[in-house]
């Protein structure tokens, strides 16, 4: 077992390392969009030199200055020149390999992810992300707290009342919400409850708003975010519980004198839980990427919003994108790790990595 855990953990770190390295290299080679403002840009390039992603050299040779000014010197596309009349300051990107090494060193030793270039110019990228995490975390945790009991409840109800009217209605609910894209559901909710009925806010209130307004503001995004997952959990719970309810050991439980509720709670439920645990952990990753869409529609200043802002075409903010992607990747991979481990722990029938 210990070996299994070790191998899985190691494997997750390897995947994380591969994905992030690949992302860094690909982003590093993509067109750069340094800050638009002249002064800010100089600060940013100085920062790049400090972080080891660019080299700075001063050109005083008149011929070379002339060549650079006429763009004949064959400088790198991402090079930047500060013209001081009698001398030129040339910032050039260092080779990918070297900047990759510097990047790893910066991240591992100082946790330095570079500064933002477009979203909030020259502000530490990680601190921008860190500011946004609480709202996203709040949203996702509330959604989690809402959807697990709801999904279980409806699923159990459907399984116990199989083939009745209630079950059929639940089946329709499952079909509808599993099929509809999140943004369609969210738009419908926004239209009905926000604009037509006017019960709830049509956009997320500012951070300064406290109290009831702020709590009410979570209703729509949580519903929009989780109904898809509720439908998934309901379907799984119903399928698992239906299968268990028809099994022999449940018949035995009834024959030995347990009432139906007793047999369901003590025997059926526990056995049907096994495949649900991994589903729930996986679904958290799904919620997190779904919240990107919800945050965009409802104007929630979370991590998804910051990622989409940083990804705006022709206004790309590399460092911020990189750190946000790292955040999403880490959460996704560790969720998978937990799933792998619980598979082994929860269900004794599955012994992954065991010797045959």
């Amino acid at each position: 077992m210990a070996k299994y855990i070790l191998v899985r953990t190691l494997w997750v770190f390897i995947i994380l390392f591969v994905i992030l390295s690949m992302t860094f290299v690909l982003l590093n080679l993509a067109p750069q969009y340094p800050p638009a403002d002249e002064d800010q840009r100089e600060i940013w390039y100085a920062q790049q030199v400090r972080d080891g992603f660019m080299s700075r050299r001063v050109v005083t040779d008149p011929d070379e200055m002339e060549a650079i000014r006429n763009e004949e010197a064959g400088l790198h596309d991402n090079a930047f020149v500060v013209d001081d009349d009698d001398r030129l300051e040339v910032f050039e990107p260092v080779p990918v390999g070297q900047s990759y090494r510097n990047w790893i060193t910066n991240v591992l030793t100082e946790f330095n992810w570079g500064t933002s270039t477009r979203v909030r110019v020259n502000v530490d990228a990680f601190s921008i992300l860190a500011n946004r995490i609480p709202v996203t975390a709040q949203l996702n945790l509330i959604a989690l707290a809402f959807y697990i009991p709801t999904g279980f409840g409806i699923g159990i109800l459907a399984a116990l009342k199989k083939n009745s009217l209630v079950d059929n209605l639940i089946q329709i609910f499952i079909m509808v919400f599993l099929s509809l894209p999140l943004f369609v559901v969210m738009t419908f909710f926004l239209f009905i409850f926000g604009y037509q009925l006017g019960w709830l806010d049509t956009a997320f209130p500012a951070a300064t708003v406290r109290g009831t307004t702020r709590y009410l503001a979570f209703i729509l995004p949580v519903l929009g975010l989780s109904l898809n997952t509720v439908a998934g959990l309901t379907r799984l719970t119903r399928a698992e519980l239906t299968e268990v309810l028809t099994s022999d050991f449940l018949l035995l439980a009834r024959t030995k004198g347990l009432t139906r509720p007793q047999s369901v709670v003590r025997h059926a439920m526990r056995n049907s839980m096994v495949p649900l645990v991994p589903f729930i952990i996986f679904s958290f990753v799904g919620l997190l990427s779904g919240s990107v869409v919800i945050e965009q529609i409802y104007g929630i200043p979370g991590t998804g919003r910051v990622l989409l802002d940083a990804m705006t075409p022709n206004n790309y903010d590399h460092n911020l994108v990189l750190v946000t992607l790292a955040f999403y990747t880490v959460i996704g991979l560790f969720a998978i790790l937990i799933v792998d481990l619980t598979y082994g722990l929860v269900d004794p029938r599955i012994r992954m990595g065991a010797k045959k």
Partner: protein
Amino acid sequence: MIDKEQDTKIQQDISHSEFEFVQRDEKIFDKKFETKPVGYFKDAMTRFAKNRANVVATIILFTLITSSILVPVLTTKNFTSQEPAVAALPPRVPIVEHFGFVDGTRSYSDRTVDLETIDEDGLGIPAGFDREFVAEGSLTNTTSVCTSRTSDSCVGGQNIIGLRGQSTQTSVVSDESFDFVRDDQPVIEFDIENILIDGTLLNVELNIGDDTDEDWRQFASFDEEGVVSFEVFEALDELDLDEDIDEFSSPIQFEIVAEIPRVNIALNSVSIYQNGEEEPFYSASGFDLAQYQLSAPASTGNFRRANGEQIVASFDYDVYAEAMGVRDPGAYSARDTYQLLEENQDICSLDGVDIDFDNVDYDDAQQLIGMEFSDTCPINNIYDVSSPIERDGETYFNFRLELNYAQYMGYDDIPYFLFGTTRSGHDLFALTWLALRTSLLVGLLVGTINITIGIIYGSISGYYGGKVDIGMERFTEVISRIPWLLTLALATAWLGASLWSLVIVLTLSGWVSVSSTTRTQFYRYKGREYVLASRTLGAKDSRLIFRHILPNGIGTIITASILMIPQVIFAESTISFLGFGIGHGQTFNIFGFELSGVSIGVLLADGRSELVYNPHLTIAPAIIVSILMITFNMFGNALRDAFNPTLRGSE
């Protein structure tokens, strides 16, 4: 038991000679089944047809797909031009419109009425609307409280001069100057609604200097509520000035002076009376009074309005009649007018008009002025012509005319836009199907790529097994662990927002599920006897894979992969909705299919910001895509269940 024992006894007594063959001369064949044989597909079909809901879903799905192919072909509309005149019309559906539902009217509520429009019934409509198109009997007026200082529709009420912060003094000055002449005996009257705090004063000041050399003097000071007044020149005399003034010009300035901060005085009106007349020479209240400006720094106080009343109207407005009726386009060039008339010569009665349409001549054109055409002609009437300009030997001039807009746009009558029109004036119905076609084609394209890659990868992995399989499985694990946001970010960084970045995002890990299904199928079939037999006969790997194993598993693989298409549409519309996929103005040519840059996600992204005033832009496409997704999923599930009976019950 006893019977059986007897039976055996009886049988034992039969001699050999008594036995004979029943069918000595006949050959014995296998007996035919009483029931008809049921093939694999027929069996699947039976199971498929058993579920009524799935059949209905399938029919709806294929109707949608057919419509998405036919509608864009049948409506050869130009979706690149802008038609602002018919922009954002609400839906209008034949037959249903008679029930007062989707009838092409737009409901307005609580719009401030322009007071000049109030008719003999006492009902008015807001500015910018034409009474002709207000649905009969739908117009209601109510009054509501307003505090606007800029709208002259807001009448009456008080104007409040108030103190801000820690300030105890602020002043307000009138927007115009008045001439005060001693002989007119001018009296300035204030109607003060309330002064709540004792010790608060309202001081009135007038400027007895001139514009360049201002000399403000306090003329009066009031501290009680009600109508108060003072005679200007009496007050002036009391000031004991060095020189006599018989005439001066000044705005009226009044200030509030209080002992404590945050005090208000509410004023009803300011009036000037002359010569003891009953009627005021000048009176300002409500909106007029609200035009007075604060003359002290804004930090010291404010001048605001309260309890004003305005009339607001609620009504249904026939936007179709307005958009499609008689419209004046402003100047309309002579060449375009001639072209329009020439094309519609038969419809527009041009009796008695003798014009050479190919030759634009100013004198000739005079005979058109004042002409009224029939209702079916694109031009309603021509009422004027501008003076001509000569340039390079050509004459240019413009007609002033009115168009029958429906006819002008090529409709016989006011058209029905079933889903309404977009901001650019395009028929949303046609556009929705066009968008659906784009989404479906992208779904098909990406689905095909994913299924192809998945089958090839899964075949190799499943067929060879062992080390190859383990290595390939590890690779799929890494690929499928990459979040789609990351792929999207990288694709956007390299390619910008485009179809190709969309395709990359959707195919990078999209094939993994197909490949795992294929791999399972290969594990299931590769050990079978017929494969072994073929291998013994010397068949190569490729033959075993593609001629023996794959054909057996392909049914399961394809039916499991059908669900990929709605998933792709799902993802495509989400990404386009966020603005990173397809977008307006892009066109693509894929295998001869011309794709417009409009997908369902793009339509919904357009409608998102107009959810308040133009919900139809969102509702129609959202409902269509919802139906598509639901029916596609039901169809996919039904197909999978039909071909794989063991899956039944789990859905």
